[in-house]
């Protein structure tokens, strides 16, 4: 009976943890070309802020210094976009290429298609805001 209870507790915890991770969304980078090269990176959004806390301070400051000129704009952009969870911002297409930037259900989606190549990047807006705030906190003079 004890083993059953432990197993149940572990399963329930896993289900709850899995549900929470899914709820927070994923950062996804998918790149496919028709020569057979495929890159698919899925990172649960929930682990990114945690990972940023364990990154060495010096590395974080270096990254923040590089991004510093654009951090205020990024923060304003991500904070402002919270009001627009589902919207098409930019869509450019011609006979061969198609580029799209939009939000859907609180996620920023960037897609680029050209003959033989396809790139998709998705990132929850809340995560972008959290990352930009963490970088701003580590950037000198911001």
């Amino acid at each position, binding site marked *: *009976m004890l083993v059953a209870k432990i197993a149940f507790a572990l399963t329930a915890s896993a289900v709850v943890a899995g549900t929470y991770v899914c709820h927070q969304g994923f950062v996804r980078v998918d790149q496919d070309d028709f020569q057979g090269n495929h890159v698919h990176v899925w990172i649960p959004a929930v682990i990114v802020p945690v990972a940023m806390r364990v990154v060495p301070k010096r590395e974080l400051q270096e990254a923040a210094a590089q991004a510093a000129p654009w951090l205020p704009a990024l923060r304003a952009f991500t904070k402002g976009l919270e009001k627009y969870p589902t919207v098409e911002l930019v869509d450019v297409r011609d006979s061969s290429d198609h580029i799209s930037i939009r939000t859907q259900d609180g996620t920023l989606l960037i897609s680029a298609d050209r003959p033989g190549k396809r790139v998709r990047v998705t990132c929850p807006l809340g995560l972008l805001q959290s990352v930009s705030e963490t970088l701003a906190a580590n950037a000198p003079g911001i």
Partner: protein
Amino acid sequence: MAAHRQFRTLQSSVLVTSLYGAALLLLPFPGMAQTSAQSSSAATPAPQNVSSGSSERWLHVRVNNGESKDETVRVNVPLELAEKVLPSIDRDRLHGGKIKVDDIDCHGVDVRAILDAVRSSKDGEFVTIQDKSSDVRVAKQNAYIYVHVIDKNGSKKSHVEVKVPLKVVDALLSGAKDELDISAGLRALAAQGDTELVSVKDNDSTVRVWLDSKNLSD
């Protein structure tokens, strides 16, 4: 008795976990949304919600090019978002939502002085040019500045119409003498009703820039 107590404990644990899981499942799943968004973006990039709050103002840019209209540019910018982002950009000539115009090369033309002169003058037609190749008309009427150009060169006839609210011009000129206050211009633009600002039409392409309260250009 002990077995019965254990069963009751297990039963209540299952109930609590189920309720918690159900509550989480009822919340929207961004992760799942991404998956559906990805599959839909490959086909048609069409966000679902079309209308927005009456106070929200959107600037739309639409370019159609090519006879088959297979080259398109669609840009939809919420003015409130632009108002927030612009002051935070501090690059080149753009600082705090204002752009320095003193060193912009306009072939010796003082853009600010011209705008100021037009703003303070009475309604009327300022420029009228009519010749074989083109008709040009610049006028001020009902608190708008209008620019109409008809290019009659060759077989390709093109029409350009630009309509700028004077309040936007006032707002642009509200800063220091050597700068245009873009943020103030956007705020003034946001206060305008639905209006078409720029329209360019020729045989090959159309360009439209307009303002409304919808978040989609179509």
